């Protein structure tokens, strides 16, 4: 069957549906991520995290007394009895993210008198738009997720793809748009016309500009290895390319292994997360660049940060952890897995993203924060040389293949 070429109307409708699905996914994931952050960090720190909203859900609230009549409540009670934090209380506080959103929506929206009002209002939007536009080029599944049934009105027989666009310069698009986000931070900080945001914004500008270099260089490794900038092609070929001989294969895997850590480190810096959260280091700069922001404007920055966490996780998963395939670091090309497990599946990709998001939270709960000059040292003296070496090795591998 030859693939159907959609008419313009069909194309627009299907794109709209895809946008709704992708945005819906991200907009659901971000609040859930804030909830996960509360809970993950809470469990690391031997406490319960958010419990107040819907505290009585599944009988968890009564679990404390060890006399609960419900099953989960009973298990919770048992865990308290054994001196453990009750795992089953994870459901408590689940609607907390709705409460968070409502709180942020209804909070007073303050614009400082001395602020540059237009820039002050626009920059959070700039940060958020940049962070969300990136998802246009991220592919959640390489092919069609499903086809509309033939009798479906207007769209009968058309595929519903796991990606919005199949850009041939997808990676460039992602990197380019993502770096626009830093303008949102710097301009917002500058427009606040206040001292702490100024310091935070300057830190952020220096940091993100510095880390953009190793970040991009580390992503050049997959670009060189695959000779493509197309997200789907890159992720598929990085995962499944069969190496010409064992030596090339081993080096390729090692390169991806190291590249993963380098890229993830840069990603942490790029998203302003601990241990690189200098721009909003609350113990130093109160709240850094968003000190003067409140209400929904603040939450735009917040959403942008979490959305870029998802972006970074998605890129790391796609290019280094085997993307839509089961095995990471290009091992799929070595070990031939048959059947369902061998195929590309959206679930593998999502699981990898979720795991990396967990790593973000895990790291936040574990390590202290770098100092400004040390951060610059790490970026310029370690990561950039590493990435350059990796780049050269990648070029040699490409030559060998």
């Amino acid at each position, binding site marked *: 069957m030859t693939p159907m070429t959609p008419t313009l109307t069909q194309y627009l409708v299907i794109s709209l549906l895809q946008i709704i699905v992708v945005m819906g996914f991200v907009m659901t994931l971000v609040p859930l991520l804030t909830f996960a952050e509360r809970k993950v*960090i809470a469990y*690391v*720190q*031997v*406490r319960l995290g958010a419990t107040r909203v819907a505290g009585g859900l599944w009988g968890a609230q009564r679990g404390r007394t060890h006399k609960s009549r419900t099953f989960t409540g009973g298990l919770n009670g048992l865990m308290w009895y054994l001196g453990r934090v009750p795992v089953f209380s994870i459901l408590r506080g689940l609607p907390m993210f709705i409460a968070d959103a409502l709180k942020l929506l209804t909070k007073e929206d303050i614009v400082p008198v001395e602020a540059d009002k237009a820039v002050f209002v626009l920059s959070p939007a700039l940060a958020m738009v940049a962070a969300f536009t990136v998802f246009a080029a991220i592919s959640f599944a390489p092919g069609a997720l499903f086809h509309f049934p033939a009798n479906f009105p207007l769209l009968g027989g058309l595929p519903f793809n796991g990606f919005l666009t199949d850009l041939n310069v997808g990676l460039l698009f992602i990197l380019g748009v993502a770096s626009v986000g830093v303008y949102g931070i710097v301009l917002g900080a500058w427009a606040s016309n206040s*001292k*702490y945001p100024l*310091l935070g914004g300057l*830190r952020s500008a220096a940091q993100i500009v510095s880390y953009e270099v190793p970040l991009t260089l580390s992503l050049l490794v997959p670009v060189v290895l695959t000779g493509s900038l197309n997200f789907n092609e890159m992720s598929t070929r990085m995962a499944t390319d069969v190496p010409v001989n064992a030596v090339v294969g081993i080096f390729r895997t090692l390169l991806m292994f190291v590249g993963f850590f380098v890229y993830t480190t840069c990603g942490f810096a790029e998203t302003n997360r*601990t*241990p690189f*959260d*200098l721009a909003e*280091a*609350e*113990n*130093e700069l*109160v709240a850094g660049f968003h000190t003067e922001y409140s209400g929904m404007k603040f939450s735009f920055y917040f959403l942008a940060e979490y959305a870029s966490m998802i972006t970074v996780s998605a890129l790391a998963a796609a290019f280094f952890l085997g993307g839509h395939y089961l095995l990471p670091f290009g091992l799929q090309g070595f070990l031939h897995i048959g059947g369902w497990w061998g195929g590309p599946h959206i679930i593998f990709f999502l699981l990898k993203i979720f795991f990396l998001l967990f790593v973000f939270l895990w790291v*936040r*709960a*574990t*390590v*202290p*924060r*770098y*100092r*400004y*000059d*040390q951060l610059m040292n790490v970026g310029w003296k370690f990561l950039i040389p590493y990435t350059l070496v990796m780049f050269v090795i990648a070029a040699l591998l490409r030559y060998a293949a």
Partner: protein
Amino acid sequence: MFKTEEMEINLGPQHPSTHGVLRVKLHLDGETIVRCTPMIGYLHRGVEKICENKTFFQGQVWTDRTDYVASVSNNLGWAEGVEKLFGITVPRRAHYIRTMLTELNRITSHLLWLGTHALDIGAMTVFLYAFREREEILSMFEAFCGARLTTTAFRIGGLREDIPPGFEKQVRAFQARFLDCLDEYEILLTENRIWKKRTVGVALLNAEDAIALGVTGPVLRAAGSTYDIRKAFPYAAYAEMDFQVATKNEGDTYARYLVRLEEMRQAHRIINQCLDGLPEGPVMAKLPKVLKSEVNEIYHAIEAPKGELGYYFIGEKGGVNPYRMHIRAPSFINLQALSKMVEGRLLADVIAAIGTLDVVLGEVDR
């Protein structure tokens, strides 16, 4: 064409990591500190003056409110100072219990320091781990004297009550697991590269400067001095205790961190010795109903968790309250070193320096 200008920035008095109401006026060149001026007085209540209008028995209540995270130490200093003024001999059992409680208090104070200091540097988990143990000690204080923070634990001449039943078991249970807890904090911090980067060589203060500025306590001992009043001028039951004074030579934030951790280990040892060697006998000396002083002046210093805590009393003839009372507050004097430590360094080091000095503003301002 270009001109540069120093930026003046107020760190505090409402700032997440100035530990209360400390205000630090910073002159910044970019992120480098040009000048640093601590500004204090936001919590001044006039404790010394108030104590001059309270009897010797009542004054102790006010010492709870100076260094509110180490109130037992303050109580001990007050009680022993007054006893020295009147020449009262305290029973040996009371000395042992006082020593034990004071060392428990040293642990709570250092745990609070560890948690907040790590939090300032960005390691947020240690804070909650430290508070988990601190909570346990606070409930011991509650069992002993009914209060968790403002303890007023002792009386002039001894203790109001002997330790309650079950108290020893509670302490022993805590003692049994506390060393493991310390190891747990160390796993998170001691060999952590970022922690070391943030603390090694940061906020340096050498012994010479420290002595010149009057700095005492762990900050002084981390600079190589072995001055510890518990050894130098033993009080309470410290003369009978076997413990080491923790010292380091580096004089940086990391050394102070290690010194305080070691002090917690030593405190653990002392508590064990107090429990094992707890003598029998009364806990209160015979006292007259009303204490009336002679013309007399004394200075009594103890090793509080933050440093040398001294009480200076002048009595007047027939007076029921001190004619003049002064507290040599270690936090106040240690805070002087802040400018010395941070000038020429980066903004983030100020936070580390405030944390490592372990100041409590209730004691700085009194």
